[in-house]
């Protein structure tokens, strides 16, 4: 399927081409039109493994996360599922360092992140797209992208990297001088995602990228994530309430309920387990 050499295959216990084909069959034609542009080819940092070990965290008082174990193998997409308040956002914010962990370990590429600042986690290749699209409204599309890339590229290489994102998200290329606050919801999500991947992260954390978006845009974003995994070997931890879309591209699914892991299985098992879906995912 891919013309590129696949990154370390220890993570690829599940046949990639099969889950990819399944997903392609489920999403709309927008995804099928999306050919991998230049930006996703060529040499890149390979994805890294992310490992959460007994992670407990919360806002003072009672912890929101209670002893959570999650393993995100390098080059795979893990869907983090669960109802509102299950702890998905808290988990992502703790991994990126915005919230302190009360106990437990966060291991990124074999290294314990305890005591590593938010900035240094980002620089090491741990990117987070926070909830609510988080585009800097006062900056233009171009400036938002440059901001995302300038810790890794400078000068002409930065411009090339920005152009690579425009290849990936064509609607953004037409709006490069527009300020963040002038963008539609879909454009903002594309910009937030483009800004996160421009620096070639090794692990990408996404918090509800589909929230409030049209199905066509959701399909496009999921297709980009799948392409990034397949072509670059990017590791993705995807928190979603849109279970169908997330499981369509994920290799693995982890279901959180009230801050604890209640299921941790291959995505195709979760897709078919109606009892579990009824119990925790509401459909």
């Amino acid at each position, binding site marked *: 399927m891919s013309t590129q050499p696949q990154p370390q295959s220890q993570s690829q216990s599940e046949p990639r081409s099969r889950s990819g084909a399944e997903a392609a069959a489920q999403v709309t034609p927008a995804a099928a039109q999306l050919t991998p542009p230049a930006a996703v080819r060529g040499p890149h940092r390979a994805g890294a493994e992310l490992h959460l070990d007994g992670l407990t965290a919360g806002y003072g008082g009672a912890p929101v996360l209670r002893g959570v174990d999650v393993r995100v193998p390098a080059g795979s997409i893990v869907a983090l599922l669960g109802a509102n308040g299950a702890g998905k956002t808290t988990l992502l914010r703790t991994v990126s360092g*915005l919230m302190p962990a009360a106990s437990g370990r966060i291991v990124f590429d074999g290294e314990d992140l305890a005591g590593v600042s938010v900035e240094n986690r980002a620089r090491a290749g741990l990117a987070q797209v926070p909830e609510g699209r988080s585009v*800097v409204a006062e*900056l233009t599309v171009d400036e938002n992208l440059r901001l995302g890339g300038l810790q890794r590229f400078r000068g002409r290489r930065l411009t090339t990297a920005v152009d690579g994102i425009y290849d990936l998200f064509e609607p953004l290329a037409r709006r490069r001088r527009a300020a963040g606050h002038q963008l539609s919801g879909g454009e903002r999500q594309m910009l937030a995602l483009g800004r996160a991947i421009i620096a070639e992260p090794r692990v990408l954390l996404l918090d509800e990228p589909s929230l409030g978006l049209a199905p066509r845009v959701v399909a496009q974003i999921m297709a980009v994530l799948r392409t990034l995994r397949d072509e670059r070997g990017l590791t993705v931890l995807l928190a979603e309430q849109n279970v169908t879309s997330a499981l369509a591209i994920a290799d693995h699914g982890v279901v959180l309920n009230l801050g604890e892991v209640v299921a941790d299985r291959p995505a195709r098992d979760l897709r078919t387990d109606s009892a579990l879906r009824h119990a925790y995912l509401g459909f």
Partner: protein
Amino acid sequence: MDRLLFLLATGLARGAIFALFALALVLIWRAARVVNFAQGAMAVVATYVAFAVTGLTGSYWIGLASALVAGGLMGFIVERGVMRFATHASPLSGVIIAIGVVMVLQSALGIAFGPNARPMEAPFPETPIVIGGVPVLSPYDLFVLIVAIGLMGILALLFTRTSLGLQLRASAFAPEVSRLLGVRVARMVTAGWVLASAVGALAALLLVPTELGLNPHSADMLFVSAFTVAVVGGLDSPPGALIGGLAVGVLISLVTGYLGATVAPIAVLVLLVGVLLVRPGGLFAAAEARTA
């Protein structure tokens, strides 16, 4: 009519200084969400440094350079030493800390140099050039205008064209998102203080030769005027600081010329109160209520 032209020209030169000083307030407000009430006192410390250096070396220009360095250093020390520890629970805490810094600095200057005004020489003549029988502008005022406008141009380029400027703006608008993108926001806040304090020091250095002389309170009125400018222009708006500065400079010049110098500070305060009543966000700010 001749008099009007002269008052307008000197008002613009004075206004350019207000604009610079107001710009410094805006830079710190954007970087740290604090109105730096200590900026006048910090700038006066830097001006004393320039005064001493010029006295030792005999060169105005080395003095000017040392004012910039001393101003930047003051910004670094005040931010890292004091302001960093202000809680953001109340916008007042930063203001009160800044007022404490003012008291410390002004007392220290008083102890070290005494309360008397020391005359400071301008590098160019302060008598107006006469064109066609009409006095227009002194060479020093022209110098002030060129330096102020040149510096603003450099700052505009820094903020819009460089990676540092992009990171400074991003850190000011969206600190959390900037950190997630690897921007060292704490350093950017410090950089904002250093930059702003150097600009404020330059503004005070340019102003003092046109006043009675250098004393620990030399920048008090400059601060009030520039604060008015920043409020009029909108604390978030560098173009507002520029236009507001020039406008307040001309206002003070006209009021001084036609009504007398004692009325000028009242005019500034009337303007401040008027703008706060009508458009509390400032004339150039987006319509949004101010919380600090």
